[in-house]
């Protein structure tokens, strides 16, 4: 069984192995044991409510219950930009027009912005290569929306995700080459890592503060603004299907887009339903196609657990699940659980 649960102390080795396998590009989970340990500690404090709600970092592990091992991770940062400064470029338009001369020019312009400050970010998604496919990625990502839904007061009304921008096989980013490198005396990967480590004062010190007029950048750089890396396209599609939209913000280094949604508009949230648990005696084949699976969560803040069951288990007021699933979710007969389809049902 694949089970979502809060990240735990003993996940460090698995996490480190995954981070190593992911290589560069995932700057929020670098392959650094000390740093990963800090993240785990932070997550433990968050779930145990030993840190301020706005400082919360909710990290979920995907556990393969047969292997008893963490094979994936995903996260929610309760608020960004409260401890450090959170930067984006806002892709805006400057219009210059002269009626006398009959000239009307629209100039796309990047404005340095901190407008995502104090907003909830979904982040840190990483799935072990061995477990990709079959809707596992969906479960790992979308379980977060069930959590956001049930504990809204801990999060902002809107949530966002930063999508990785375009870079070539060597990790070179056209936007960085045309813009960032002119101001930061370092490589893209170095800047990206520094930025991921959280101390962003170097950005305040080195970043251009005035707007950047895009016609002054080369075509290659302009072309990637607001576009995602090809490896990230599936993740973007998934979020768009959930109701996330590009909000005009892009990453200051690689130009990757920021997508956002009101929590109440997220499909997983809209389509979620509550049912009372009934433990079934009759055996059940859990191995159904992803289309027929629904996510089921135990709605626990401290020990949030989600797995999938066949849609057929859902009754009018109840959901009938095998004892092993109830055990994994730590629920008993009569407990209220929440359900949402794993895949897009096209009901919209």
């Amino acid at each position: 069984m694949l089970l979502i649960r809060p990240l735990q102390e003993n996940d460090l080795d698995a996490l480190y192995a995954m981070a190593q396998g992911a290589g560069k590009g995932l700057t929020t989970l670098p392959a650094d044991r000390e740093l990963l340990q800090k993240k785990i500690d932070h997550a433990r404090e968050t779930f145990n409510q030993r840190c301020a709600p706005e400082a919360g970092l909710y990290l979920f592990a995907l556990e393969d219950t047969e292997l008893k091992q963490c094979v994936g991770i995903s996260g929610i940062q309760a608020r960004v930009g409260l401890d450090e400064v959170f930067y984006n470029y806002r892709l805006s338009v400057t219009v210059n027009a002269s009626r006398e001369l009959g000239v009307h020019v629209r100039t796309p312009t990047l404005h340095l912005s901190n407008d995502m400050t104090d907003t909830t970010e979904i982040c840190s998604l990483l799935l072990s290569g061995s477990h990709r496919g079959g809707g596992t990625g969906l479960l790992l990502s979308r379980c977060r929306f069930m959590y956001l839904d049930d504990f809204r007061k801990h999060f902002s009304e809107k949530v966002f995700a930063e999508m990785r921008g375009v870079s070539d096989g060597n990790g070179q980013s056209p936007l960085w080459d045309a813009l960032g490198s002119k101001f930061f005396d370092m490589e893209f990967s170095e800047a990206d890592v520094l930025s991921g480590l959280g101390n962003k004062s170097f950005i305040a010190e080195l970043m251009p503060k005035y707007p950047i007029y895009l016609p002054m950048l080369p075509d290659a750089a302009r072309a990637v603004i607001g576009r995602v890396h090809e490896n990230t396209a599936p993740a973007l599609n998934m979020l768009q299907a959930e109701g996330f939209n590009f909000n005009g913000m892009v990453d200051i280094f690689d130009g990757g887009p920021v997508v956002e949604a009101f929590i109440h508009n997220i499909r997983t949230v809209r389509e979620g339903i509550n049912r009372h648990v009934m433990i079934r005696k009759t055996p059940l084949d859990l191995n159904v196609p992803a289309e027929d699976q629904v996510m089921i969560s135990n709605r626990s803040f401290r020990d949030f657990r989600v797995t999938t069951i066949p849609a057929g288990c859902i009754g009018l007021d109840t959901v009938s699940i095998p004892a092993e699933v109830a055990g994994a979710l730590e629920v008993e007969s009569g407990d209220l659980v929440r359900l949402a389809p794993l895949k897009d049902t096209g009901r919209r």
Partner: protein
Amino acid sequence: MWLVRPAQPGDLNDILDIAGGQGPRMSSTLPKKQDALAAKIEQSARSFAGTNNASEARRFLFVLEDTGSGRVQGVSGIDARAGNGQPFYNYRQDALIHASHELGVSRRVEVLYPSHALTDHTLLCSFTIRPELRGTDAFELLSRARMLFIAAHRELFTDQIVVEIQGVQTENGDVPFWDSLGRHFFNMDFETADQYSGLLSKTFIAELMPPNPIYVTLLSQAAREALGQPHPQTRATFELLQHEGFHSGCYLDIFDAGPVLEARTDTLKSVVTSHPKILHAANTDDGEPCLVSGGEGERFRCTLTALTESLGDEVRVPVKTWNCLGRSSGDEVRITPL
């Protein structure tokens, strides 16, 4: 003889002829259209005569006349107040230091700020001369006669004086700075923008110019190299003005990034060295070559002369110079060495 005097309506065709014969930029403040030019000459005449009404800007236009043929061979001008009541646009080149203490890096970041700081400073402008006269004494006369006019009418002008020097242009007429910056916003070629700038109110610049500062590092390499560089053809003008005491500051032309030269009016060489003297006759044509000017307002004249003797408040120059200036013995003139 070469004579510099206020432009008159009758000079219109000669000036048009000269203005048309220049490259695109030389004529930027000198309209190529007959009616616009005629209006400009009339405004100049009012400025010399002191008959402008209070709201009209004082703009002086001088011509270089070959007294032998009576033909005008060059034009130069002074705007008493740059912008003539409107903003006078420049870029101000400045640098910010972007330094990270933690990373131990430091970078000099050049920025161009839109600026109107030179608005209302006296502006030398409209300098246009037949190419074959470039670098000659007549060339110097045409340019420096303006300083003598300023010296004689100091109260009409400000303490700071500026002049725009044409910037870099390639042989096929491309302006690298314009192509890298202005073109994107004005959506027209350099020559068109330049013509509008001479003819229209500056409203279109306020409307079309990018409203925020520009990072130099994002300009094309050719544009960066052109910042503050004079066009090779302006070499003679540039050196003459430097000799007068002008120096490049941090201001650039907004269209071609040519340098704006600045000077304090009271330290201009021609102003400092040209004291009023009383005119007397010389018997010979020999002597030190000098600029000599006389006459107020619309009667201002300036020519080249040989100066035989200068003692105390008196100077001796040949009588033909008197005639050229329209002055006679005992009149006051200004003299300065070439």
